[in-house]
């Protein structure tokens, strides 16, 4: 039987509590922004999703390298699941970004470096998922996907700098010296939200690996059944 392990269930409950805490801190604990109002609440989930997406793609990169060295299918599964999670969170970033932007700067989209880089990032990893979805034998697919996982990740900083030099400057720099600064309670809420999302990532990663294992098992069972019926 493929039952989720005790630690997986525990992780699920911890994530659940942390997400509740993050929700409380974002909506009730943190003060309402003076200019933007409630819309600013998107910020906590927008930034946390972006963090998760980059983290997920970093894991794809690392897992791809380890797979090419060790040829252990475990790492291939991790890269695959992580890429899918990354694409989901990048989608969330790309959806929440324009909603916030529309309210804050009165425009849905600006061709601003970080925004545009995220869009290209999304396309790169969609390509990765497409390579995964193409019909090939498992080993071959794992190798090619790993190679693309490495290429794609190396490309991201170059894309960022190219777009930075090309684009205008519209994104508000919240942190850093020239940034507008942030209320301490807002910062707490943001940190809580990032931590909760990080746990959510690991929970989804485990879940995805479990699903992959279940699919493998199902495939084997089908093969045995087919062999018996002949």
């Amino acid at each position, binding site marked *: 039987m493929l039952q989720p392990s005790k630690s997986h269930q525990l992780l699920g409950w911890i994530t659940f509590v942390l997400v509740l805490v993050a929700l409380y801190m974002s909506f009730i604990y943190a003060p309402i922004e003076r200019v933007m109002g409630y819309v600013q609440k998107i910020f906590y989930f927008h930034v946390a999703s972006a963090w998760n997406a980059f983290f997920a793609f970093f894991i794809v990169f690392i897992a791809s390298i380890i797979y*090419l060295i060790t040829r252990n299918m475990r790492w291939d599964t991790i890269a695959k699941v992580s890429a899918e999670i990354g694409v989901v969170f990048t989608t969330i970033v790309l959806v929440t970004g324009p909603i916030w932007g529309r309210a804050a700067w009165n425009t849905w989209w600006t061709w601003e470096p970080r925004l545009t880089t995220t869009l*290209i990032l999304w*396309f*790169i990893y*969609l*390509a990765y998922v*497409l*390579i995964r979805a*193409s*019909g*090939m034998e498992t080993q*071959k697919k794992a*190798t*090619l996907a*790993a*190679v*693309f996982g*490495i*290429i*794609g990740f*190396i*490309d991201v900083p*170059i*894309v960022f*700098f*190219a*777009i930075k*030099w*090309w684009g205008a400057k519209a994104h508000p720099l919240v942190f850093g010296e020239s940034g507008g600064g942030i209320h301490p309670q807002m910062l707490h809420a943001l940190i809580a939200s990032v931590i909760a999302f990080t746990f959510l990532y690991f929970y989804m990663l485990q879940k995805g690996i479990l699903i992959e294992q279940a699919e493998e098992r199902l495939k084997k069972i089908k093969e045995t059944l087919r062999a018996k019926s002949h």
Partner: protein
Amino acid sequence: MRFLAKIANIVWKDLVAEFRTKEMISAMLIFSVLVIIVFAFAFDPVGETVRAVSPGIIWVAFTFSGILGLNRSFVNEKQNETLLGLMLAPVDRTAIFFGKVITNFILMVITEAISLPVFFVLFDFRMEGSLLQLLLVIFLGTLGFVSIGTFLAALSANVRTSEILLPIILFPVLVPVIIGAVESTATIFNQGAFEQIVGWVKLLAVYDVIFLVVPFILFDYVLEV
């Protein structure tokens, strides 16, 4: 030196095979001119628009026609089942990669050398910037396109639907080359000083180096059976 001779042999073999059929080069040429003509209908070919959109038109024509050639460079080998022969040849796998890069580069340069004057004529475009700088940018841009393009073509050749897969996986990765090439071409057309394009030229050069070295390391994995 032996390594270079091996690469030269692969280039020679590819070019001889290509110029017997002229299958790729003719398709690339016709397509790149067609793209330019389509743009002539899409934008008003007379008037000020031309100057503003011409760098984009040129690079879209180059990259789109380049994709046609890249698609065939490994798929042909697969279909004729000659890729296995190439892999069995007593050469380093990376020699195959560099050989293919150089072949594709030569084919693209031929296409560009013909379609660029065609563009100038059809749009009645008077080149005013430095031709030398333009050639430098075209060289670097084409090299970047061909190096990563050849590598991803080898990767996608493993898939049945490689013609569909290649553009989708290539263009997102190619974004820095397209931005750099278009921006510096625009500056050259506007007679900008060389200082204005130095940043872009460096970016293109760095991209070229990275995506010649990284495939060099990873190419063995792509050709694995």
